[in-house]
């Protein structure tokens, strides 16, 4: 096992399958894509089983100096492992969910498989430029997926997606060039331990922030997301929400925090402010949507805001919470998009008012939809609860105000999700065509059931998912401890504080 380049193989399998899909016709392409993604899932399970929890920080290391200036360096820690698992788990589901794609199937499957290669590459890259190449390259297949197989307004959405994310990323490249020139290495683990001067950290942090904030997305640069989600085909939305958004969070956790701890602390107020606005504002926007996909897209922005506050809480709870929210959101929002896709395939509309009373004619569908709705809200027992609770517990140690505002967002989240569920599944069957829709077929069961199982697993026993990441989060926490912002809620029980406590609060917020 030690010498088997499993990460390269995991990237190679979908790549070869993508080429094969271009050469064969529709039916064969579907089969090739499904088989390739299942092989990758199996390899992913193998990866997880062989991952030594508590062992070396970086495992499955590969390094081939193939290129000038950077090398083919791969390796994972627990954080990357979990995100790779998320990617390989969602991919076969995406392929299965694409049954309604009729035109240019071979190219479609090729684009998705290429996407899988690049996603694994992003999470496994150990060379900063290799990371950048993988990170940027993902734009091409996604642009094609939205533009070719998307909805009516797909061209606008594809441009917006591409140009928004591109302009965010290019400045990051300049920052990376500067860092490599300064530190003299392109190796990410080395760079994570390199101490840049605090005053340059500010600029570098901002350059990285430009990229990750767009990718995440954070308010106010989130506007590409609703367009892209609404116009993308179902599987495209699943990948976009499930994995691509996580690249932003992964970027923060892999680059911004460990490489620029001082700047991260310096700008924590900015992240908090934007996240607070995002939680409240996008939740309110979600509340008034008539388009199901748009509603879920806005809810994604709100959930990602919970991720960012958890990340910048500078404590293990917050970081672990942020990671679990990312994983959970990847599953849940993906599942919700699949739920929309199921009824969209039947009625070809995403308008909420066209449905109603689906729990009568589609009871199993309503059950799954209910589960994912509850997970999105964060009901205890589902994956959503674990992550949100940890994140908010983490941020509460730093700032009770931020915690208060963001918790309000959770309540709003419950409001819009329950409102959506009521309108779609409960009430009268006011539309005859919606009332005549058949329940889930076998293929759709295969889409829903695995995700539902994992959502419950993560909700009931999150330790399986937290254990591989714990050591890495501890390392990260130790790394950023020196810049930890002062908390406004020091729980020093018993000792009465002097009267200047309010001043202290303002101080804590300002950092």
């Amino acid at each position: 096992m030690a010498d088997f380049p499993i990460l390269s193989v995991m990237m190679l399998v979908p790549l070869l399958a993508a080429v094969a899909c271009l050469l064969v016709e529709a039916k064969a392409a579907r089969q090739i894509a499904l088989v390739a993604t299942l092989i990758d899932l199996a390899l992913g399970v193998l990866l997880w089983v062989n991952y030594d929890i508590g062992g070396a920080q970086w495992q499955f290391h590969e390094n081939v100096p193939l290129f000038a200036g950077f090398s083919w360096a791969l390796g994972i820690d627990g954080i990357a492992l979990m995100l790779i698992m998320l990617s390989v788990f969602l991919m076969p589901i995406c392929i299965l969910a694409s049954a309604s794609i009729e035109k240019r199937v071979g190219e479609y499957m090729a684009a998705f498989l290429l996407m899988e290669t690049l996603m694994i590459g992003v999470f496994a890259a150990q060379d900063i430029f290799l990371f950048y190449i993988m990170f940027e390259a993902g734009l091409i297949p996604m642009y094609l997926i939205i533009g070719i197989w998307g909805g009516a307004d797909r061209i606008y959405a594809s441009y917006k997606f591409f140009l928004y994310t591109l302009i965010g990323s290019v400045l990051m490249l300049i920052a990376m060039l500067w860092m490599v020139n300064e530190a003299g290495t392109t190796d990410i683990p080395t760079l994570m331990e390199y101490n840049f001067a605090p005053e340059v950290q500010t600029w570098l942090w901002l350059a990285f922030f430009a990229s990750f904030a767009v990718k995440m997305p954070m308010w106010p640069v989130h506007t590409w997301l609703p367009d892209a989600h609404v116009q993308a085909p179902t599987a495209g939305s699943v990948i976009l929400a499930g994995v691509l958004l996580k690249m932003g969070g992964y970027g923060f956790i892999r680059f911004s925090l460990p490489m620029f701890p001082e700047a991260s602390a310096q700008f924590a107020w900015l992240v908090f402010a934007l996240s607070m606005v995002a939680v409240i504002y996008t939740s309110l926007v979600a509340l008034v949507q008539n388009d199901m996909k748009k509603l879920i897209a806005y809810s994604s922005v709100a959930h990602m805001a919970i991720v960012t506050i958890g990340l910048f809480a500078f404590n293990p709870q917050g970081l672990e919470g942020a990671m679990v929210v990312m994983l959970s959101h990847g599953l849940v929002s993906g599942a919700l998009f699949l739920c929309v896709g199921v009824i969209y395939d039947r009625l070809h509309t995403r308008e909420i008012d066209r449905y109603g009373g689906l729990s009568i004619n589609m009871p199993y569908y309503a059950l799954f939809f209910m589960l994912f709705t509850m997970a999105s809200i964060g009901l205890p027992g589902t994956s959503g609860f674990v992550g949100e609770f940890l994140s908010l517990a983490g941020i509460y140690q730093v700032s009770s105000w931020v915690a208060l505002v963001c918790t309000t967002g959770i309540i709003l989240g419950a409001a819009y999700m329950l409102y959506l569920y009521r309108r779609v599944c409960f009430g009268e069957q006011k539309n005859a065509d919606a009332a005549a829709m058949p329940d889930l077929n076998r293929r759709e069961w295969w889409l829903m059931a695995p995700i539902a199982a994992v959502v419950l697993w993560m909700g009931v026993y999150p330790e399986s998912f937290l254990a591989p990441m714990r050591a890495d989060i501890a390392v990260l926490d130790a790394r950023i401890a020196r810049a930890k912002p002062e908390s406004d809620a020091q729980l020093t029980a018993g000792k009465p504080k002097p009267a200047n406590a309010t001043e202290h609060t303002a101080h804590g917020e300002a950092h």
Partner: protein
Amino acid sequence: MDFVQSFRLAAPEILFSLSGLILLLASAWTRSDRGARVITWLTVVVLVIGGAMIAPALANGASGPDTLAFSALFTASAFAAFAKLLIIAAAAASLVVAPAYFQRLGAYRNEYAVLVLFAVLGMCLMVSSTNLLTLYIGLELNSLAAYVLAAFLRNDDRSAEAGLKYFVLGSLASGILLFGISLTYGFAGTIGYDGIAAALTGKISTGAVFGLVFVFAGLAFKISAVPFHMWTPDVYEGSPTPVTTFFASAPKVAALALTVIVAIEAFGNQIAAWQPIVIFAALASIVIGALGAIGQTNLKRLLAYSSINNVGFLLIGLAAATPQGVAGMLVYLAIYTAMTIGGFVAVLMLKDADGNPVESLADIAGLSRHRKVLAACLAMIMFSLAGIPPLFGFWGKFVVFQAAVEAGNIWLAAIGIAASVIGAFYYLKVVKVMYFDEPAMKAVGQSDWMHQALLGLCAVAISPLGYLLTKPLGEMAATAAGVLFIP
């Protein structure tokens, strides 16, 4: 003067001139398409032989006095060899694509290949120059051949117009350059680059600055950098497409290499004087090249603006004024040559059912449905020109920006790369038209196998496989660039 050594060093150029003369004579006696084809292929053979003679200079990193010929009027350095090999490759590519194009129009004549050969000779002199006179002779030899080539379809109004425009504006630029040369000579007292560098040190007089500015203005015209770019779209559009392929690649390489030589060798002690000019030209070219392209509906015009845009990125490498910057430029030039040849060959391959060329953007709508491979190659070239990884075009931008950052030009790099996003917009537009729009079913004609092979070669070179070349390419470019910085 050691004649043996001189003739040995200049052997490729002597081969080109003798072959050119012989083939010109031979042309006078053959007046058929078949004869023209034979002459074209003979020219390609001559170019390949010349390339084989030049290659060793690059491999052994030729530099110093051993490379000087004819009393130091000519140098066969590694830098010159790198540029010459690119020029020869580009010229050979534009020769092999020509027969299929011209034959259909009944306009294939023997002189095409001969003119290209003379242009190559001129360009080789340009990049081998060690003084302003060799520079000027090379430049004019190239330009005169190019003017005729632009007007090669003499029954076609657009071609004639392109030739005339190119000639008038090109002469003006040559005049500006010559004026700059005369001023520089007047103030430096010599035309040799070494002598100029020695004479112009420290604070220089206003007259010498004028000379420098005029020399750079003349060169900026030849590389079509903003604000001297106006001729490019018209000439590229009007010229026959094989000729445009040639213009966008070989002379561009030669003129850029020449600019580097003049900037680093002749004015190497006046970096502070020319750096602002280069920085302005770089940023202006990136922005104007990108904005100008947005409204274009003709593919050749679009690619013309794209070449202006790319010159801007290349100049960012020169603005660094370091060996890394020049090496980055050379790497970029090599990749740019592959992209641009691929782009124009793809345009050559677009034909309607009757075999007439299709050049408008609207006509390639939905190309991905009926010409899958061609559309995929063109899309790759577009993404590559936009500098999106994992395509190889990204690497070109990467190395020049890396050099800029290493040289401390961080703001230049940041502004330049942010402006590259504007360019991405119109490259995406081409992809959008080919992939997202409903098929117009215009470009349905079959293409020549030679074009297919060349496009395939370019597509492979700019695909992610190209990254495997980064090491050898980087080493060669570093050797070549290092030659210029030997004091």
